[in-house]
């Protein structure tokens, strides 16, 4: 009887801890995403000897739909990426053509940066595609954080072996995220910095992605403008609308 009771307590404790971890992730995701958003972003790829900057407009609705319009540099201006559920299209303005991207492109670098296509269009959801485990607490750059281990679910469209996420205890902000491959080796670290008011919420306005094995390389993504709950007309996230964006 005692044993059973103990087992029940332990099970319940384990369950509630998982619930806690999931709840923390959920709250941090909600902060970040909202039902829909519209933004202006600047991406800088930094390498030891050079750097390149690109500007874009972004729209998203849940994790299912997103659209990116490149506005700078001139060479890529007018290029559009559309993601609808698990499909991705690319509008190439010079050729006036919509190209459907093969699924294997998801894990690839997005326009030469340290972000992957998946990071950009968020095919995988850290809430739905992972199981969550609270590992403890840690202080990162002065923020007291929950340390949470994310393990991908078996059939999730995820390219990582595991992800460690540090979420601030006070505001549920994603302060740092570490991406590991299937051999448990650290591949990328993403830091959320410059916390400020964006679209009525306090958020990291700057995301820095640093690959572990390439010193001097990093990609900085800066939100110049961000608005939440911007309702787009029905049919906004369609291949028909891609060529109309400007």
């Amino acid at each position, binding site marked *: 009887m005692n044993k059973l009771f103990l087992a029940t307590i332990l099970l319940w404790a384990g369950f509630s801890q998982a619930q806690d971890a999931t709840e923390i992730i959920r709250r941090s995701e909600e902060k970040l995403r909202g039902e829909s958003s519209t933004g202006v972003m600047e991406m800088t790829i930094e390498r030891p000897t050079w750097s*390149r900057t690109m500007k874009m407009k972004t729209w998203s609705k849940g994790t299912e739909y997103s659209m990116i319009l490149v506005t700078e540099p001139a060479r890529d201006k007018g290029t559009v990426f559309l993601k609808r559920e698990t499909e991705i299209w690319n509008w190439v303005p010079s050729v006036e053509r919509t190209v459907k991207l093969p699924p294997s492109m998801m894990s690839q670098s997005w326009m030469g940066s340290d972000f992957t296509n998946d990071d950009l269009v968020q095919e995988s959801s850290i809430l739905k595609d992972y199981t969550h485990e609270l590992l403890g607490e840690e202080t990162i750059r002065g923020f007291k954080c929950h340390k949470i281990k994310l393990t991908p679910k078996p059939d999730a469209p995820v390219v990582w072996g595991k992800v460690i996420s540090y979420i601030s205890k006070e505001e549920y902000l994603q302060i740092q995220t570490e991406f590991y491959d299937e051999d448990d080796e650290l591949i990328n670290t993403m830091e959320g910095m410059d916390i400020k008011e964006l679209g009525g919420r306090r958020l990291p306005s700057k995301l820095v992605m640093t690959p572990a094995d390439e010193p001097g390389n990093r990609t900085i993504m800066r939100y110049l403008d961000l608005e939440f709950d911007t309702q787009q007309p029905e049919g906004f996230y369609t291949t028909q609308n891609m060529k109309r964006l400007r």
Partner: protein
Amino acid sequence: MRLRIFSFLLCLTFLLKGQEEPKKTDLKGYVKLLGSFNSFNKDYFPPNPFIADDIIPASSQDYQIHNRFDFKYYPNSKLTFGVGMRNRLFWGYQVENPPLPGQPSFYQLLDEDNGLVDLSFLYFESDVVLLHTVFDRLWGQWENSQWMVRLGRQRINWGVNTVWNPNDIFNQYNYFDFDYEERPGSDALRVQYFPNFKSTLEFGFAPAQDLKESVGAVLYKTNYKKYDLQFLAGYYQQDLTAGLGWAGNIGQLGFKGEANYYLPLEESRDTNFIASISLDYQFGFGLYTQASYLYNGLGAEDPDLLSFLSLNTTQVQDAKNIFPFRHTLFTQVGYNITPLFRADAAVMFTPDLKNIIVFPTLTYSLLSNLDALLVAQYFISQNPFENDNVEWLSGVIFGRLKYSF
């Protein structure tokens, strides 16, 4: 006079560019400097007067400065006007030397406008330089949420496949002409109707001066089970044509294809079937790979040297007969060595390996808007004159600098 119009347009476009009035107008374009270094294998042929007298030289160089403006004007949310202007200044071997006997001159080829209206202008020609302008886009468009109507010179791009596009019946293009990404336009009316968010019903009509040579067709596009699907039917220069195309995936592999059938209205003409499929895949470490196959019923099963020689950057292919070979295979690998530096290698060949074209490509981003490109096109073919050896016939190396604005 023409020169004055040209400079006026130049000034106008720069003025509009400087004007910070967002949304109403948009101007973009580029300036490219392109050098072509041609070489020709004289030992391929048995001794003959053409080669002995250097009518076809063993090596020659051509250069051009190539500028493009793409201007758009949006007077209100329903109307758009577009102008595409291509200006090129040529010098080098082709300008300075007469064409091969019986061939049209470089001037004639360049100034040929296949549209209803002649929008091609040779400003000046001398034995040294040649300045040419063509308006390859000139259209007005009206749209609302369900309709889009565009009239004028435009590109109606119906292709969904990677290398060969049998469905692209309005503006077939030439794969070898890599320096013309925008591709020519045609004088046409295009009406698009969007019955729902997934589907498009489209009608295109490109009249020709000889009405019989016109092209008119209907296309229906939709998305079904993660496949982009399209069906088309219409009239193509004295034939009836019907086709289909798709873009989807098999597992992680991209899977695309297009096919068209041509049924002649007159007995003297040929029927034809053209089909192309392709698979592409990007490996986790970044290597992009692609394989394509093209079947063209009118292509030569055992191509001779002439059909091989017909492949070059100046020839625009015909939609009904898009490539000179019956069976053609294409493979490509590409890799970003750094985010700024990309290397690609492609090979086009007939299955008997008697005709091979090799295209290595290197691209390097020097500055944000300045790109360098090095491309080679090497033509290798079985030599009918000498032991049937497969050997190189001709080659071109292109060096290009491109500044985008």
